[in-house]
């Protein structure tokens, strides 16, 4: 037996921040940003329990001092690659606890000026490019988690697609957490005018009962007429804390298809925002939330119409088992200038046990007068008559429930245009749906 020394790690405190900072090799402007963020973090309070975003998510269950950030790579790697079955990739970045393991980009794409890979590496190679865009769709002062992220973000990935470049193969990002590890990854995606790309992101822990911390952020910046498909399969271990700020800014006549599947984490709070900043921009969000055990997953979504003639179409479906709970708070915000907005927002819940819970709060905030916005939410149980019908056709109870749950999500699958993603989500959900007595 060989002695394993655990990699050096730091706490998320002043001393830890200094150690973290001195360990970085990065441009001064970035270190300055971090110092500023850390100052802000120290000056800020944790969100109040009365705060609208936290009223249903009890932050007292979270203690930052129980978590550490590792400064050296662990060799605990197990790439799971759920999303990439049979897919020819244009590039891949994998990491464990922020430390990059794989960092590849196909030569033909690099030759076209595409930049893709580790943010830690590329911030040195393309300092000006990254400086221009970093934090343009992320607000480090949003709350204390945002400030913490801005101070400590590491690992992370960048995708930059130059004007007119169409990437025909998906790019893959796999973020892994060791049991008890931390991930502070920042993902920055920039599509210039007329560019097109597909990004498949997945995150996971070594086992479904692993713990750890994720304090992450995602920024998507789309210039006019660009087209992005972004997929995010979140399967952190069920004892992980998961806090994320995710925002896309979509330019004129650009389109974004954003699919999220939140299956993991014990306590999760995600802000997901799409800003429609150019006339004719359109966005479709497909969300799957599936919880079990004592999982608590909260999504706060905002479809913010800033420019006129834009479209946003957000559909979330959630299924809750055991003692788990989801919170979905959706908002369509239409600015005064955003006439002819077409906004749609919906959250359907399938509550699978008497002790699970779904909070679903749709909302509209409309300042323009010529808009079409619809929203809705439903909460239902698996219908006993549906189960009986399936039993009468020879299904076992488990098979019946599984089929009904997968059928419930089918409307989302029907909207997903990438086959490997549809399959991975189907598998993931089928795995999570418990056996029923």
């Amino acid at each position, binding site marked *: 037996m060989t002695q394993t020394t655990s990699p050096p790690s730091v706490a998320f405190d002043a001393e830890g921040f200094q150690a973290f900072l001195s360990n970085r090799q990065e441009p001064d402007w970035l270190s300055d940003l971090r110092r500023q963020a850390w100052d802000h973090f120290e000056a800020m309070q944790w969100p109040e329990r009365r705060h609208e975003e936290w009223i249903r998510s009890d932050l007292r269950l979270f203690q930052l001092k129980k978590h550490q950030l590792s400064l050296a790579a662990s060799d605990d790697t197990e790439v799971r690659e759920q999303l990439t079955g049979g897919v020819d990739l244009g590039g891949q970045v994998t990491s464990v606890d922020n430390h990059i393991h794989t960092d590849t980009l196909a030569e033909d794409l690099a030759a076209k000026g595409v930049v893709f890979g580790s943010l830690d590496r590329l911030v040195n190679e393309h300092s000006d490019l990254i400086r221009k865009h970093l934090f343009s769709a992320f607000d480090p002062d949003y709350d204390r988690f945002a400030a913490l992220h801005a101070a400590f973000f590491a690992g992370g990935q960048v995708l930059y697609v130059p004007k007119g470049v169409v990437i025909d193969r998906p790019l893959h990002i796999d973020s892994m957490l060791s049991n008890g590890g931390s991930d502070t990854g920042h993902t920055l995606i920039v599509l210039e005018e007329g560019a097109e790309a597909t990004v498949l992101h997945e995150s996971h822990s070594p086992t479904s009962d692993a713990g750890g911390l994720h304090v992450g952020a995602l920024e998507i910046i789309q210039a006019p007429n660009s087209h992005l498909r972004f997929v995010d399969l979140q399967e952190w271990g069920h004892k992980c804390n998961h806090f994320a700020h995710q925002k896309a800014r979509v330019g004129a006549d650009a389109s974004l298809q954003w699919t999220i599947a939140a299956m993991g984490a014990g306590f999760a709070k995600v802000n997901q925002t799409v800003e429609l900043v150019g006339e004719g921009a359109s966005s479709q969000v497909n969300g799957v939330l599936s919880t079990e055990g004592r999982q608590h997953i909260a999504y706060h979504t905002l479809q913010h119409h800033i420019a006129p003639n834009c479209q946003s179409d957000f559909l979330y479906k959630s299924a809750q088992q055991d003692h788990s709970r989801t919170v979905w708070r959706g908002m369509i915000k239409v600015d005064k200038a955003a006439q002819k907005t077409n906004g749609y927002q919906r959250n359907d819940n399938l509550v699978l046990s008497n002790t699970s819970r779904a909070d679903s709060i749709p909302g509209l905030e409309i300042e323009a007068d010529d808009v079409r916005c619809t929203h809705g939410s439903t909460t239902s149980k698996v219908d006993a008559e549906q189960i*009986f019908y399936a*039993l*009468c*056709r*020879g*299904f076992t109870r488990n*098979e019946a429930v599984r089929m009904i749950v997968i*059928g*419930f999500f089918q409307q989302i699958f029907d909207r997903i245009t990438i086959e490997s993603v549809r399959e991975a989500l189907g598998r993931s959900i089928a795995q999570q749906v418990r056996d029923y007595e």
Partner: protein
Amino acid sequence: MSDAPKHQLKIENLHVSVGDKPILRGVNLTMGHGQTHALMGPNGSGKSTLGLAIMGHPGYEVTDGSILLDGEDVLEMEPNERARAGLFMAFQRPVAIPGVKMADFLRHATTNVRRPDRKEGEDLIPMREFRKELKDKMQHLRMDVEFARRYVNDGFSGGEMKRAEILQLAMLQPKFAILDETDSGLDADAVRLASESIADIGGREKMGLLIITHHDKLLEHNPPEFTHVMLGGRIVETGGKELAEELHRSGYDRIRTAYPEAEARNQEMLNEETAV
């Protein structure tokens, strides 16, 4: 093949309650191999209840009596075991299962019913083999193959629902099938098509059919060896084909007068129904 096993479904003294409300009060009915029985009776007399109790609906509690399939105690079985043992019901009002395609539903159902010992997760009938059979059956029933891609009963018209039930009957090939008003809500052409289809499937597979109907077309194509008349939760009279013909011609007045106690019970159940 004369040495093929002969099947029998035997219902004795069946009492069924919904909640604490007794509905069936001692039903006796024995169906032999490949026989066709008509089950008639006014609304609320208990016909659907009998079917649902045979299938094991959890809301319909059997408080007395027995149901035996080839001597096996059906009441001990879960509904899915009953299906795998060879019982089938075409529902009067089948439920929708949104997001589940007919073809996927039927492939799973057909596999389970044909391989009663199949464990969860074991392979289904190979896709190609299944598709071919499904397509053949659908063509035979003059159904558009597109139908298989639609979600189970989701947004189906009344007629489409009934035809989907007939398709399931054709695929699952049970030993005994209860057809609960499979001809209701259809126009004349659709009734004829349904009647012919059932005669075809039932005859070919030598199925026992328990046909619940208010119309004569279905029975013209599937002449019953026995006709049972239910009233107030009991079978009050059993006859041959001519009894069904009489009821179609003259209605239930003679029956209601001849069995005043059952008629009173039938009215009582209907009144309770509106009182709920």
